[in-house]
């Protein structure tokens, strides 16, 4: 027996060898997808959508998956659905996070444990969520918390239309996928935030000079304060629905054009 066969036997002693081997190959394919996850762009939503697709592939029976993250903001920490591999998952996320604030993913994230249901419509754990999702024709759910050593950073939610699709074996495979996925998602998030910060600083740094020049121009014309001039710029920007930097550039360009014309005349 090879090392690979040993793993298959440990993972799923009750399955046929062929089924266990096929499941293992799917899991490996899903995990391999995590390498090079951030390819093409560093858009967090895009890469989480890829993680959701890899999860759908790695977990037997899955028809779709979504990824949610815990996000800290000024009002505290909240759960945000950020990516879905299929439109029906997005509909379920909307019911879970926006409409009801109840469901397996919220339970998995808050309790930091894998949550499974094979008949959502009659599941008493989520008396409002279950029936609504059941009516959409989705009956099985597997929610896997994304756990780092001392922190939960989100969850992967896997759904299937059939009943009792996710057994213990599927949950085990899901957990094997979720462990490295948690690290990958979190590190990708760190990188995406580092890039966000860089882009925000660079964009602001490049637009600030022309905004300041426009403030000076308005102050020169009206004698007001910098705050008043900025407020005026903002009003123009909002009225015309144009970015502040674009309005500022237009004001400066126009004044410079006039100054150059006058300079050529003299």
């Amino acid at each position: 027996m090879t090392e690979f066969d040993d793993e298959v036997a440990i993972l799923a002693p009750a399955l046929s060898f062929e089924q266990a081997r096929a499941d293992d190959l799917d899991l490996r394919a899903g995990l391999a997808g995590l390498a090079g996850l951030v390819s093409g762009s560093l858009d967090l939503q895009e890469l989480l959508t890829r993680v959701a697709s890899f999860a759908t592939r790695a977990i037997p029976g899955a028809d779709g998956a979504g990824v949610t993250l815990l996000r800290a903001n000024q009002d505290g920490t909240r759960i945000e659905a950020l990516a879905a591999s299929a439109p029906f998952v997005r509909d379920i996320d909307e019911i879970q996070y926006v409409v009801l604030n109840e469901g397996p993913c919220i339970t998995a994230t808050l309790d930091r444990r894998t949550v499974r249901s094979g008949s959502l419509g009659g599941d008493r754990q989520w008396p409002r969520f279950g029936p609504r999702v059941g009516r959409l024709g989705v009956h099985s759910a597997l929610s896997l918390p994304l756990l780092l050593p001392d922190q939960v950073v989100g969850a992967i939610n896997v759904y299937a239309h059939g009943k009792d699709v996710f057994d213990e074996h599927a949950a085990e495979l899901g957990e094997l996928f979720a462990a490295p996925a948690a690290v990958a998602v979190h590190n990708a998030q760190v990188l995406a935030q580092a890039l966000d910060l860089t882009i925000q600083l660079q964009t602001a740094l490049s637009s600030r000079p022309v905004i300041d020049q426009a403030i000076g121009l308005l102050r020169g014309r009206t004698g007001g304060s910098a705050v008043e001039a900025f407020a005026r710029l903002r009003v123009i920007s909002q009225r015309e629905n144009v970015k502040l930097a674009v309005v500022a550039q237009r004001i400066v360009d126009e004044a410079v054009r006039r100054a150059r014309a006058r300079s050529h005349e003299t």
Partner: protein
Amino acid sequence: MDISTAWAADLAALTESLDEPGTDISQTLRQLAADTKIAVHSYLGLSAILSVGGRRLEFTALEEDAEPEDIRASLRISFPPALSGSEDPAATASLILFAAMPGAFLDLATDLSWLTGSLDGLDTAAFVLDEDLTVPHDPAPPSGLKARSTIDQAIGVLISQGNTPEQAHHHLDLLAAYTRVDQPTAAEAILAEPDQPSTAGLRADDRRPAHTRPQPGADTHQPPQDP
């Protein structure tokens, strides 16, 4: 995270320039710090070093109670202009993360290289370990952005008075030289009387704008000649 008052004001001004409702650069910074700390427990803070359109920005934000001499590990991430979306091909942008434990960023750097795979410009060369064990500058210096803002606003005032940008810069240079002050101080003098009619230059005292005239008792040396 400890963001000094000066940097908080700068970050607020930069956020204002971004003009993106819901975006707060300080909040992005805090979120990055919080998430980095989850990945690297001994995280101490970060420095940002950027240059775009000839303007340079450097700042450091350390965690509360962290001191520059605590730094034992660093990870520098350099973003190429293509990735950061800058239109300036000469733009540079690096973030340096600091930690207290030697080798603290090894796993994160390895994971990031693994994750980014074939992403253009973010190969292994973009992640540099432990070469920046000192902060690149004083974490709480006087704000340079405010001085640049003052100068740019003064240039705007001078343009509003009919000067081309070149004339406006020249005017400001002459004023600073004539009054023996630095450019931000000369710019402040212009902004103190923004609606004061100016002249096209400084060739003669009687055409000189009010803010260039020597104050009573001031040194009455001759201004440099406007070429």
